[in-house]
């Protein structure tokens, strides 16, 4: 193997400094990088392990209800967080269904976001939640919406000198969020189709705001904005829901693979958008 050095920085500044070395790559928990390394799909000269960095840890909530999660939080921490269970239950629910307990024990939120495989679960969930990512570089920090972060298959809008320090989810007041992962094969597999729905429902029972995000059916996780828009001002059922399902299915560009043909996946997008919106509104 070609990796010459493993660096465990003690601080964020040390991590950012280590990232300036040629051929450096960040390591969260290794559940994706381990596979890429052993198959020689990546050959980093320096691995910078940020999974144990204190500045990237923790789950908290601001006074205004904004939920803040450190990039090094593991999926297990997300799944078991009482704070998240109360503030944004869709997130621990989704995190707790990814892979298996041993993967969840080490895989990190930051790693899950930057890996950029369109079949992952958390990107669509966080897209529907309108999450923002906090990004640090040697030159300073910035905040970016997750919408726009995914450019293509395993391509994310992150500079080589940048790392994600955390994720912010806006307060969920009056929002209802659900995520469906359709796994016709094994439950621990990537989903054939992942559908995240977030709806803000007013006192009159009308949908005031909506997001629908899809995983597994395009080169990247995507928002189906037009589909979501067709629900606004309606009760979220009947013809409006049929329209949302139809538009979402037309919006994605799935490929054929072992998890289903493109045509099948497109049909399943319609089915699971209907079911997930209905689940959102019923509970």
């Amino acid at each position, binding site marked *: 193997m070609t*990796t010459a050095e493993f660096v465990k920085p003690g601080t964020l500044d040390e991590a950012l400094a280590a990232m300036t070395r040629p051929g450096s790559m960040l390591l969260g928990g290794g559940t994706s990088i381990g596979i890429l390394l052993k198959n020689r799909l990546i050959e980093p000269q320096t691995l910078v392990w940020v999974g144990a960095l204190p500045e990237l840890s923790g789950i908290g909530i601001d006074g205004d209800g904004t939920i803040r999660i450190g990039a090094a939080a593991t999926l297990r921490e997300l799944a078991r967080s009482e704070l998240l269970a109360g503030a944004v239950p869709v997130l621990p629910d989704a995190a707790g269904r990814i892979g298996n*307990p041993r*993967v969840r024990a080490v895989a990190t939120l930051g790693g899950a976001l930057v890996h950029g495989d369109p079949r992952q679960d958390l990107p669509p969930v966080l897209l529907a939640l309108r999450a923002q990512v906090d990004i640090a570089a040697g030159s300073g920090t910035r905040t970016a919406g997750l919408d726009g972060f995914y450019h293509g298959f395993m391509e994310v809008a992150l500079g080589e000198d940048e790392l994600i320090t955390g994720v912010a989810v806006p307060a969920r007041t009056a929002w209802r969020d659900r995520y469906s992962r359709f796994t016709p094969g094994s439950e*621990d597999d990537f989903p054939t189709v992942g559908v995240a729905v977030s709806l803000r429902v007013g006192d009159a029972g009308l949908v005031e705001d909506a997001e629908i995000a899809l995983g597994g059916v395009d080169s990247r996780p995507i928002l189906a904005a037009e589909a979501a828009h067709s629900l606004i001002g309606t009760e979220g059922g009947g013809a409006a829901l049929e329209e949302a399902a139809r538009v979402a299915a037309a919006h994605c560009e799935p490929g054929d693979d072992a998890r289903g043909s493109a045509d099948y996946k497109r049909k399943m997008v319609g089915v699971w958008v209907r079911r997930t919106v209905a689940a959102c509104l019923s509970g």
Partner: protein
Amino acid sequence: MRLHFALNGEEIACDAEPDALLIDVIRDLGLTGTKEGCAVGVCGACTVLVREVPVCSCLYLAAMAEGAPVWTVEGIAKRDPALVECFVEREGMQCGICTPGQVVSAFALGLEHDSATEEEIRGFMSGNLCRCTGYVTITEAVRSYLDHR
């Protein structure tokens, strides 16, 4: 690079490549109870404890275990012989290839739970695949272990 960790309760130091996987380091030290099955974190045969948490040693970089307690099936069997007895008594195995991972995961379950429902056992042990038993006797072995501690 030089690695130091507490393997089955014993402080050890060894040389390893910076990107060595924990399973290879463990097996090169002669502890071959830990098996590589799928090599992609799905089957659970390679399960070990790092910092008392079950991980896939086939994906876990050895350098991430620097300074940490690491327990393999060999150490778990000595740490709590009753657990292995439960697997034997309940016949929680057939061919045996998955058994080291099952034992380590069952021990990890016992670390976190004094008791567990059938659903909790199956949830915690999910991803420790067995292609022989159909899981009934494995679940019974874990139940027996939890009940008789």
